[in-house]
């Protein structure tokens, strides 16, 4: 196990720079998730840690060692690929043993380690099968088994769950998290799915257009997004964002509705801003703002309501069951302790 330090790392293909100086510190045993929309550079960064891509600038350390010029096989890392990359002509056991066979480990040691990994992942009965004969979830597990057998310093996962169906994805999510809690190996995990990031990570790194937008514990990111991008990206259903102006009376949207706001810097009055509020931070309040119901989606445990207020659609999630019909009006009030304000020009958080 080891820490990973990424210091001012850059990547350019020809003259096109795709990663613009990224700094991330990953401590020993931490589960870090790089998340962002496709094309944000998260996979490229992971592949640079693995050594599959050259590093154009900056420095990557695994443990105490700078690995910029260390070939992949000497970095002591294991990677799980999006398409699993299982060797189709080898059995499950051979797939897992391949790296050890290459370094000519004794047979007894190979059998022991493969057996142990298979035990951890519940693959004991599948060792003689070929990848073709496995289901998606089983293949995923074999890919992880191949990584576990290596007993590496760092696990790298490149969107490992995106080829699985929704139900299996939830199940594998739990399995991977459990596995990490058990093995405590430093893990870097790439995904575009913010739910995966929220549920699994010790630390989330939100990337966008080759830079780190924000880095921190999942709930920190959720509660205190640094900027509009993170605010919109983290959370599902995503945060409601309204454009308007900050006034002493509250936040006045372009539609002319005045929303109450909590504490905000005195000098921000009159400023063009974006008002953000998460769907679950609305309360039903007969004295609140009038909003017209557009769609009601009850899930049983909660009710998701899309309302129109001041010409803009908002998503609200209530604990209560609501029997209002579309077209009727309900009163809603935001919880002003947890509303967010962002500068309209820079997208930065206004505190």
């Amino acid at each position, binding site marked *: 196990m080891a820490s990973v330090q990424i210091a001012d790392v850059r990547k350019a293909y020809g003259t096109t720079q795709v990663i613009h100086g990224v700094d991330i510190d990953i401590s020993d045993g931490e589960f870090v998730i790089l998340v962002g929309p496709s094309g944000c550079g998260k996979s490229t960064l992971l592949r640079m840690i693995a050594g599959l891509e050259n590093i154009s600038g900056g420095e990557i350390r695994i443990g105490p060692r700078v690995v910029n010029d260390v070939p992949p096989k000497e970095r002591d890392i294991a*990677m799980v690929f999006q398409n699993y*990359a299982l060797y189709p002509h080898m059995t499950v056991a051979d797939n897992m043993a391949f790296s050890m066979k290459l370094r000519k480990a004794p047979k007894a040691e190979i059998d022991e380690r493969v057996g142990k990994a298979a035990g951890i992942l519940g693959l004991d009965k599948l060792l003689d099968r070929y990848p073709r004969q496995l*289901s998606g979830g089983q293949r995923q597990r074999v890919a992880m088994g191949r990584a576990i057998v290596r007993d590496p310093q760092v696990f790298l996962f490149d969107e490992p769950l995106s080829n699985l169906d929704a139900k299996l994805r939830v199940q594998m999510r739990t399995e991977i998290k459990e596995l990490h809690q058990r093995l405590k190996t430093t893990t870097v995990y790439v995904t575009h799915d913010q739910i995966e990031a929220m549920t699994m990570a010790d630390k989330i790194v939100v990337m966008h257009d080759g830079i780190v937008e924000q880095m921190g514990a999942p709930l920190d990111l959720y509660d205190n997004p640094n900027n509009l991008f993170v605010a919109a990206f983290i959370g599902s259903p995503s945060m409601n964002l309204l454009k308007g102006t900050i006034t002493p009376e509250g936040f006045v949207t372009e539609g002319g509705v005045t929303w109450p706001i909590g504490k905000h810097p005195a000098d921000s009055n009159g400023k063009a801003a974006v008002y953000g509020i998460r769907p679950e931070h609305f309360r039903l309040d007969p004295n609140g703002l009038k909003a017209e119901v557009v769609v009601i989606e009850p899930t049983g445990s909660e009710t998701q309501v899309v309302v129109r207020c001041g010409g803009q659609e908002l998503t609200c999630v209530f604990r209560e069951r609501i029997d209002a019909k579309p077209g009727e009006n309900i009163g809603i009030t935001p919880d002003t302790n947890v509303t967010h304000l962002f500068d309209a020009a820079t997208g930065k958080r206004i505190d």
Partner: protein
Amino acid sequence: MANSAIEMPAGLTRSRSERSAWQKLCSSRNWLGFWYMLPAAGILILFLAYPLFLGVWLSFTDTKIGRAGEFIGLENYEWLGGDSVFWMSVFNTLLYTVVASVAKFAIGLYLALLLNKHLPFKALIRALVLIPFIVPTVLSAIAFWWIYDSQFSIISWSLRQLGWIDHNINFLGDPWNARWSTIFANVWRGVPFIAITLLAGLQTVSPSLYEAATLDGATNWQRFRHITYPLLTPIIAVVMTFSVLFTFTDFQLIWALTRGGPVNATHLMATLSYQRAIIAGQLGEGAAISTAMIPFLLAAIGIAWYGLQTRKWQQGGSND
């Protein structure tokens, strides 16, 4: 309406029992399938099976051109058994096939691996590699004929200019020179087919497998040995079967270059068969030589078939 609806079942029952055999036949999908199959079967029988069996039959007769023969049993084969020219052609054919196939495979695989890399002008180079394959065999044979000419050979000329030799090489006049020369020409012609087919196979191998192997600590050679080669074997089996069959039955190149000479030294079974059957008119004997090729070809197909059948990892349903 009501009446007819009631009456219909009665009418149906009657007719069903009456014309049951013919009706059943008409509605049978197998019978219909048979008719769809018939044209293809007819063509195969007329143009493949009939000539094959005629050839085998002829080999048991003493037919000559212009004279119907009689059944003479294995006499043709007995006679061939004592014919040193026939045995020489068998030896030549085996040598030609084995050496040319191995060389074509080695060079073809090397070229395929090379072309699979990121090269500048990749498409152009790939197209260039195909040229020997596009040129008609006889045309390339004539080119080689000039290259190997005893007086005007460009190879002899170049080597002489370099001062490495002092007289022309007798490429097609000396038995062993002629054998190697024809093999070289065959290899030159056959490499593109193998290279391009293997290249197509290489491109089906997912790059992430190589990345996974790299991370697993495989060297270049180990990646080839443990990933590329095993994944390529199905295509290698197919392409080498074709290559062996085409090389074994090669006729055009030899006929255009040497006509089997010098003194029968480069006769393959195919050219010898043609020489005996058509040129000399001994149809029975020529047919016997052709028929003698069948066991070799069956063996080659058998080996390839076995090679194709024994890969468990390709079988079994995928569960996606």
